[in-house]
């Protein structure tokens, strides 16, 4: 009871602190509670914790975000591990509405094609050293032929690469129809044109039943010429900085606990880079080795590195096991490293908790455990974000990201998770998932 009160107070600490030191802080409070018994000492402990909480919240400032990785190799990306706060969401909606209203006010579809570029209209190069006064570039910016050629290239990319061939064709046809109707005539070859094309792609995709929030494609314009080569590899310093950041966050293991009745519980807010976290992951899984059942919580897991998901899955099998990865040329090995010496988890019941926020590499993990019938999936249908898109350079200034097609070599009869997500075995709300899994484990133990 007392430890629960302490745990409750610890949950009030800033999320960033809990991610970095939550486990240690909980352990520290448990240690104190074990040694400081009696009413006076317990009161003092709670007072200490309350004062510390107040001081921490008072002094807290958000930290800088992690440095983005640009090593150029295909991988799952963590865009943001945690969902936005309601206040941030409200501010975002308000800002979007204001931007949309401003755009509508200033957008003049009947303006003559040769109207000089206005500040903020986007057609003028915005970076120092760009060729804003180059007459050839100005001519190209309004050249109808160049515009038709660009639209045709974008349409061809959608048709060829979009994950759903039928919808890809429809998106392509719609763009070409807009172009034929002269709807892009007043727009110069710049940000305005890219924004308008993106709006048309989104409108068409919504009409075809793709829900809002699902990435389809995005056309980008760059005043500077787009690079033709892949980005340079990460430096040793960047790698070390990322490694230190991951270790500070306990390699995204938010909780590792052995609950009553020897139920191992592990919550992962992402799958960290295996090059930095292989050892931590091994220690975390080894700490659950004596559990009679496992609950793996990926409800707040936005993805990350498939290698770490594979490493964790390795503890759940007693022989090398194939894990389907939809990305063509994926760097993640195809099989788990099972059996792992000393591991006792391979035959223990496993429950995986999911939510609509579970995505990308977390879906890779859930999908394989489900089709292999190695785990019972409890919670909500996952997000359906495979994140296997790719960027296509169209010309020096335009490129586009497209949600790419699945590789065709899925050996399982169950369709992958792109867009549709993964249906749980036991469908309950994310908030109820833990309790449902815990009761299922108890019931199973009683009937053994």
């Amino acid at each position, binding site marked *: 009871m007392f430890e629960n009160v302490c745990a409750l107070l610890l949950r009030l600490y800033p999320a960033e602190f809990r991610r970095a030191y939550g486990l240690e*802080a909980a*352990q520290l409070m448990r240690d104190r509670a074990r040694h400081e018994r009696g009413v006076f000492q317990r009161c003092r402990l709670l007072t*200490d914790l309350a004062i510390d909480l107040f001081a*921490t919240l008072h002094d807290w400032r958000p930290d800088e975000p992690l440095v983005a990785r640009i090593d150029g190799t295909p991988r799952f990306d963590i865009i943001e591990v945690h969902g936005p706060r309601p206040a941030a969401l409200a501010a975002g909606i308000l800002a979007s509405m204001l931007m949309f209203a401003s755009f509508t006010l200033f957008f003049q579809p009947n303006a003559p094609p040769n109207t000089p570029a206005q500040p903020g209209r986007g057609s003028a190069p915005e970076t120092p050293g760009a060729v804003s006064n180059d007459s050839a570039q100005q001519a190209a910016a309004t050249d109808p032929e160049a515009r038709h050629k660009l639209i045709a290239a974008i349409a061809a990319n959608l048709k060829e690469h979009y994950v759903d061939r039928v919808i890809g064709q429809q998106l392509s046809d719609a763009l070409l129809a807009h172009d034929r109707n002269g709807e892009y005539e007043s727009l110069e070859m710049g940000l305005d044109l890219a924004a308008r094309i993106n709006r048309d792609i989104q409108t068409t995709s919504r009409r075809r039943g793709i829900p809002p929030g699902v990435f389809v494609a995005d056309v980008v314009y760059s005043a500077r010429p787009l690079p033709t080569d892949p980005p340079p590899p990460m430096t040793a310093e960047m790698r070390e900085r990322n490694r230190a950041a991951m270790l*500070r966050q*306990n390699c995204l293991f938010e909780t*590792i606990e052995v609950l009553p009745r020897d139920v191992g519980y592990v919550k992962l807010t992402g799958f960290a880079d295996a090059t930095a976290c292989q050892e931590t992951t091994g220690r*975390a899984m080894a700490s659950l080795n004596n559990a009679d059942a496992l609950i793996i919580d990926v409800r707040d897991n936005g993805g990350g590195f498939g290698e770490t998901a594979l490493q964790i899955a390795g503890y759940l099998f007693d022989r090398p096991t194939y894990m389907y990865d939809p990305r063509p040329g994926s760097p993640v090995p195809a099989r788990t490293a099972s059996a792992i010496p000393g591991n006792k988890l391979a035959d223990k019941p496993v429950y995986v908790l999911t939510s609509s926020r579970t995505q990308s590499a977390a879906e890779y993990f859930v999908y394989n455990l489900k089709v292999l019938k190695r785990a019972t999936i409890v919670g909500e249908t996952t997000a359906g974000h495979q994140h296997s898109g790719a960027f296509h350079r169209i010309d020096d200034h335009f490129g586009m990201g497209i949600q790419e097609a699945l590789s065709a070599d899925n050996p399982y009869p169950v369709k992958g998770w792109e867009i549709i997500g993964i249906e749980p075995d036991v469908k309950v709300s994310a908030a109820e998932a833990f309790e449902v899994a815990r009761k299922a484990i108890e019931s199973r133990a009683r009937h053994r």
Partner: protein
Amino acid sequence: MPKPKLNPLPAAAFQILMALADDDLHGYEIMRRVAEQTDGRTRLGPGTLYSSIQALLDAGFIAEVASGSNEGPNDARRRYYRLTAAGRKAARGEADRLADVLRVARAKKILRGEYV
């Protein structure tokens, strides 16, 4: 994670450096050692303790080390810390600074006694 500044060395950070002067310790041991060396006047809460540890790690005053023991499930979540040469130098500098303060306090008759 936001870190307290270390110049001048805050009291909590100084106490942590002193706690680590003899042994490699994990968080709870550091907290207990600090409480002992301050006669129970300073009991570091988790927020103060770990934000100070983070700042000391970033400054290179302490380093994380392998525990060397495997006592069960709790061991995976414990991290052990060791005082570095830079940390010892910083602690010595802070101790010198405090000694100067004491000398002035004695000279001004604010503090009495030879040993404090």
